[in-house]
């Protein structure tokens, strides 16, 4: 009996004592990576979705409830990307610290002007997001905005380290500002070019670097490519001399390869999330890779 009690108390203290660092949960790996930039080693970070999986469909695992229950800060997109799995988790987690409106809740889309807001919300148009396209973190200027929002939240929740978070934000901002010059220079020759993508995840990236990523292998968002649609896409790509098809880790690469082989375009592996493709362990390195890969394909 004594042993059991001892074990139980050990488990309980284990679960209660992990409060030395700020417990941060990010729904998606891009927010997680920005949280790491700001929080450094002062936070314990849990990222719910995997970098390689479809962020629209993540299982609402019970273990996520435990992470959310212990969270001091939750960073989510706030633009319905996680609509299919986050609400039941929050309902089960019952954590007042991360309710909307509390300093412990960062909704990344807050203060971001979302693109492609549908005027008429109908599911006949496929998987449309009523609030606008939610794949916004790939614009470095937007990433800065999110990072600042995260820094504000961390400072509010953990005032003792506010200076640390602020300094990290400043550092991140300076890095992005410097990097933008390089990225802009690399993309400058391809300004105005058309690029194809499997899914419409890239309007913010296109806007930032002056591209037109406007031909999609999916006939409608979330609807698998049909042969007749692909025939149209191939015709369109030939007419516009499109040289690159962007695919993400969870897309069916074979379909993109097939289209590539009949158009002479290159398949370019992209990811919205740091870690989704090799050597992209931070946000800056992700954009580095995306920019250089696309530039190589467009040359």
């Amino acid at each position, binding site marked *: 009996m004594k042993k059991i009690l001892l074990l139980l108390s050990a488990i309980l203290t284990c679960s209660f004592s992990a409060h030395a660092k700020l417990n941060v949960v990010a729904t998606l790996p891009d927010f997680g990576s920005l949280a790491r930039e700001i929080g450094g080693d002062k936070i314990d970070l849990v990222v719910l979705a995997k970098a390689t999986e479809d962020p629209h469909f993540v299982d609402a695992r019970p273990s996520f409830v435990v992470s959310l229950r212990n969270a001091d800060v939750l960073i989510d997109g706030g633009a319905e990307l996680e609509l299919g799995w986050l609400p039941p988790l929050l309902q089960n987690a019952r954590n*007042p610290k991360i309710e909307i409106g509390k300093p412990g809740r960062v909704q990344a889309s807050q203060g*971001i002007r979302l693109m492609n807001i549908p005027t008429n919300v109908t599911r006949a148009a496929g998987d449309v997001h009523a609030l606008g396209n939610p794949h916004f973190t790939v614009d470095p200027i937007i990433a800065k905005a999110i990072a600042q929002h995260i820094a504000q939240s961390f400072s509010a929740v953990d005032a003792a380290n506010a200076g640390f978070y602020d300094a990290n934000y400043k550092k991140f901002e300076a890095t992005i500002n410097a990097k933008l010059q390089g990225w802009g220079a690399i993309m400058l020759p391809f300004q105005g070019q058309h690029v194809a993508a499997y899914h419409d995840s890239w309007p913010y990236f296109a806007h930032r670097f002056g591209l037109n990523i406007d031909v999609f292998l999916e006939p409608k968002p979330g609807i698998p490519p049909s042969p007749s649609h692909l025939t149209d896409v191939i015709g369109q790509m030939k007419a516009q001399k499109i040289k690159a098809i962007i695919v993400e880790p969870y897309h069916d690469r074979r379909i993109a390869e097939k289209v590539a082989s009949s158009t002479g375009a290159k398949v370019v592996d992209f990811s919205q999330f740091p870690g989704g493709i090799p050597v992209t362990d931070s946000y800056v390195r992700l954009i580095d890779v995306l920019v250089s890969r696309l530039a190589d394909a467009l040359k």
Partner: protein
Amino acid sequence: MKKFILVTLAIFPVAAVSAQEVAPVLTSSPAPTVSNATPATAADVEALRQQVQSLTETVKTLQQQVKDQQAALEKANLTSESGLPQNPEPSPIAGAENSPTPGASAPPRFPTEDTSVVSSTTAPAVSGTPAPGGFPTTDTSVVTSAPETISSTGPGASLTQPITIGGGRNYMNISFDGLFGLAYSSAKDLDNIEVGDHDPQQRGFNARNIELAFDGAVDPYFEGFANIVFKLDNDNQTDVEVEEAFMQTTSLPFNLQLKAGQFFAAFGRLNPTHPHTWDFVDTPLVNGLFLGPDGLRGVGAQTSWTLPLPWYSQLIFASQNGRGSTGFSFRNPGDDGMFFDRITTDREARGLQDFVWIPRWENSVDLSPTQVVLAGVSGAFGSNETGANSRTQIYGADFLYKWKSSHAEGGFPFVKWQTEFMYRRFQAGRGADESFPVAETFHDWGMYSQVLWGFKKGWVAGIRGDYVDMQDSKFTDDLDRQSRWRISANLTWYPTEFSKIRLQYNQDFLEENFFLSGRQVESVFLQWEFILGSHGAHKF
């Protein structure tokens, strides 16, 4: 180009005005003295602010004109080249250099404005300074000045702020779900072969689950949920059932939650879920025969507690009236006042022993980033109507394993294995007025096990085995007390998560006993479903 010069000329005075008039305040009176001179400067600043605002407006309109002109030019140039529709937006690379936004230069000179507007939210693009001549590092067009535009559907939204669904603003989510089936069976009495109330009941077309679901935040303390089901019987008459209608707390301390109203008992995996989420067309035998054709549900109250452990562990405890057909093995007067061949007593509750008490404990761990296991044990204890003091106990154990690819698209591919086991001890008394010759105690058990394989986006193949062992009795010939087993296989196509089409094959074996002859039945079902509206996300 002319326009550009015009814009620059317009910006210049703005900057000049703000520099001239604000600079003295900033230079002559550093932070501490500002507070002393507040009444005077506040008015000044207000006047200045208005002035700057009006000038900013002018600049904006001019900018817009430039943008339009540029777009028109670009369009004209490009369409003449390729004849294809173009992105009407000017390229930020080309445009940004020419249009330093007023927001980037003016606000930093107004420290008061920064603290009142920005501190609580984000206006990050404003804080940076554009690198001269290089790639722009700020872009006010991507951020809004009013971050409040994004709200959410989550619980805890305040009373005055409607929750947002589908871009509209509502206080409630509404959805409509239609689930239909076309059935063929070698048995004429399909309603005796299928044990669930939402299963196909006749050869031909069936509409057994057309439901309206409502949910939303009631206030900062509660959320509400209701599920109203319409069923068409075999004569096409409509039955209405209030399947669930309950409120639950959202903000109790210590990870506690209370729930009260009409709700499904948290017994096992399948019982608390709605038919449209099931992986098969019909109810497993053990669920239909032990917990009842409509599942174990009723009016009652429930409390749940998430244990403060490093893994997911939850204790749930509920109490329900357990009366009628939705308390099937409990205070159920049965069809025509008979249950297991006894004339039922159908009495009012005498005390706590006549309620159904339903405890559950569930645990879940992640075996790996792609594998999850969830296991639970449940119980349901109460009295039944076959005798003055006859009791029923049901024990359940359930297990779920799920693997999902780390490169899943739309949630596919996956493999899901789910098993439930139940044991029922049923004291069958001598009926009302001791009219039945004997009292007996039945020890019945049953289980089902199913594997679902989502092999391709939108496609799921499933196989399920069912078995129920009913203790033999020389005294009853109730059809519900026949031991039986079943094997099912199906294939489902989900065009999206809002529709599905399913084909299922069932082979049923009903074992011979003292009164009933054994038989084999083959059935084929085609099921289809649509969902309208914002149907709540499903739990794991």
